[in-house]
């Protein structure tokens, strides 16, 4: 029996078991940890969220299992980022029951495109790196929750306003932090390709290292290239956490005069106890690391 049939059969059984009672929590599924956080902020106690790609996990290598289809079938809503982030979602959605509603939280956002070395172009899904977009995410989530649970309208709206205010402060905080940095220093070298929206929103240049291999063995050419690049463009900091040998990163920093940056969170939250357990703390941590690195 394939996923599709088993999903359908299970969801039929569940439908027959009974609808959700009024004082039970609303079951929803979020595709990854950042969405989970947002949903919990808005939904509070009224909502119970299942996450497919949890904290510290990588959405790009996520492989959906039949149990994920079950969770979707048992839920009222599935929240997706969209913009191509959940490449595996289509398969999953087709195999799950059609009763569950799909919410794309990025609807209404102005997406950027990203170009690849071979000329290929597609949409950049990491819209959450611009805090203003998250306000739209939150609004979409609120709308969806109200639609499925009108009884909680007041709660959801209050939560939304409160959270939206926090987001506005966050955005302002990021901007003020960056203004404090001299404009010629607002650039870093990073292998992350997830900060396109951040770059455009807040004016920090995210420069990809030319040709560096982040695999286990760097070549002298690669190292020389980075050093030259950093020196000639006066880049103040390098965030290359993928270089497996931290001693090598140190050498590069010493010789190029750049600082080595700490860890940046791009695609997922950290664990609860970590420095990026919620969306807001994640952005705060990132801006803190960036500021530390870029400040003279």
């Amino acid at each position, binding site marked *: 029996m394939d996923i599709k049939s088993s999903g359908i059969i299970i969801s039929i059984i569940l439908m027959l078991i009974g609808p959700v009672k009024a004082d039970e929590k609303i079951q929803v599924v979020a595709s990854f940890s950042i969405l989970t956080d947002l949903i919990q902020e808005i939904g509070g106690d009224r909502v119970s969220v299942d996450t497919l790609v949890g904290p510290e996990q990588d959405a790009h290598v996520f492989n959906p299992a039949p149990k994920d289809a079950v969770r979707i079938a048992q839920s009222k809503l599935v929240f997706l980022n969209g913009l191509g982030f959940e490449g595996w979602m289509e398969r999953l959605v087709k195999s799950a029951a059609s009763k569950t509603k799909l919410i794309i939280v990025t609807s209404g956002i102005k997406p950027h495109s990203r170009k690849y070395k071979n000329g290929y172009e597609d949409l950049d899904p990491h819209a959450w790196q611009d805090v203003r977009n998250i306000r739209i995410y939150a609004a979409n989530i609120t709308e969806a929750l109200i639609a499925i649970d009108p009884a909680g309208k007041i709660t959801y709206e209050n939560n939304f306003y409160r959270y939206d205010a926090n987001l506005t402060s966050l955005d302002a905080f990021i901007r003020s932090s960056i203004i404090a940095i001299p404009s010629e220093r607002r650039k870093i070298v990073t292998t992350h390709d997830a900060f396109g929206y951040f770059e455009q929103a807040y004016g920090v240049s995210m420069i990809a290292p030319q*040709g560096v291999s982040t695999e*286990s*063995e*760097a*070549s*002298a*050419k*690669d*190292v*020389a290239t980075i*050093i030259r690049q950093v020196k000639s463009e006066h880049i103040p900091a390098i965030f290359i956490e993928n270089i*497996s*040998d*931290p*001693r*090598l990163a*140190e*050498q*590069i920093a*010493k*010789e190029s005069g750049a600082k080595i940056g700490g860890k940046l969170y791009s695609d997922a939250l950290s664990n609860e106890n970590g420095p990026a357990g919620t969306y807001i703390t994640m952005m705060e941590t990132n801006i803190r690391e960036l500021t530390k690195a870029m400040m003279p």
Partner: protein
Amino acid sequence: MNTLMLFYEMSISPFAEFAFMRRALVGAMALSLGAGPIGVFLMLRRMSLVGDAMAHAILPGAALGYLIAGLSLGFMTAGGLVAGFVVALLAGLVTRLTVLKEDAALASFYLISLAGGVVLVSLRGSNVDLLHVLFGSVLALDDPTLLLLASSATVSLVTLAILFRPLVLECVDPLFLRTVSQSSGVTHLGFLALVVLNLVAGFHALGTLLSVGLMMLPAFAARFWTSTLEGMLAMATLIGFISSYLGIIASYHAGTPTGPTIILCAGVIYLISILIGGRNGLLLRFIPRKHLAA
């Protein structure tokens, strides 16, 4: 004039421009100073595979050091040295006191050491890829590491100078050595200790497995250029220097990983030496040469 400029561009200016290139060269050459002569002795004593065996014996010790204190030069070095010395000592004891020969004794303990290391690391719950983590980089030599390499070279050369006579005797006529001196056991252990020291120093620069290459390949190549012991010692060191330089500069221009490129250069020199080496080179056999009158 232009070819001179081009030559300078290709071979000198990268070192002038980048500190990490200079450090890499200095480090690799320091390593060659100690490793070359030791490789010659290993080769002549038919212990060419011992280097590789000892490299495996050292790994668990260094891994243990890493588990305790992370990428600490001190702890990883200490761990590697202890593991290597213990294996060398035990192998030496077994060879002297039991019926097993050198090769079996050494193999037995390095296997045990390696297995023990793997189990230990897995017990701690770390999924650290031993080889990956301990794979040093010749491009990342900080001051303490350079100091370690230089010290290792110095200690090796001084010890070899001191132990030279008994070492040679132990290679040529071990029975004679045993009958005239008590130092035979000490000499053997001292020599193995030097092997361990150079390998431990080497793995900071090249990784354990590659540092064995820099120890042995120049020695093998030297065999084809000279027939005296002193000549081989000098030649091996020189070839080590040349391989280091060529490897680094080639890696710079071709974008290949530097450590393996150095070893490949040594390998190419070795292959060329086999063919056209001044002594015992293969192609010499095809060149008709007059013999001497007496």
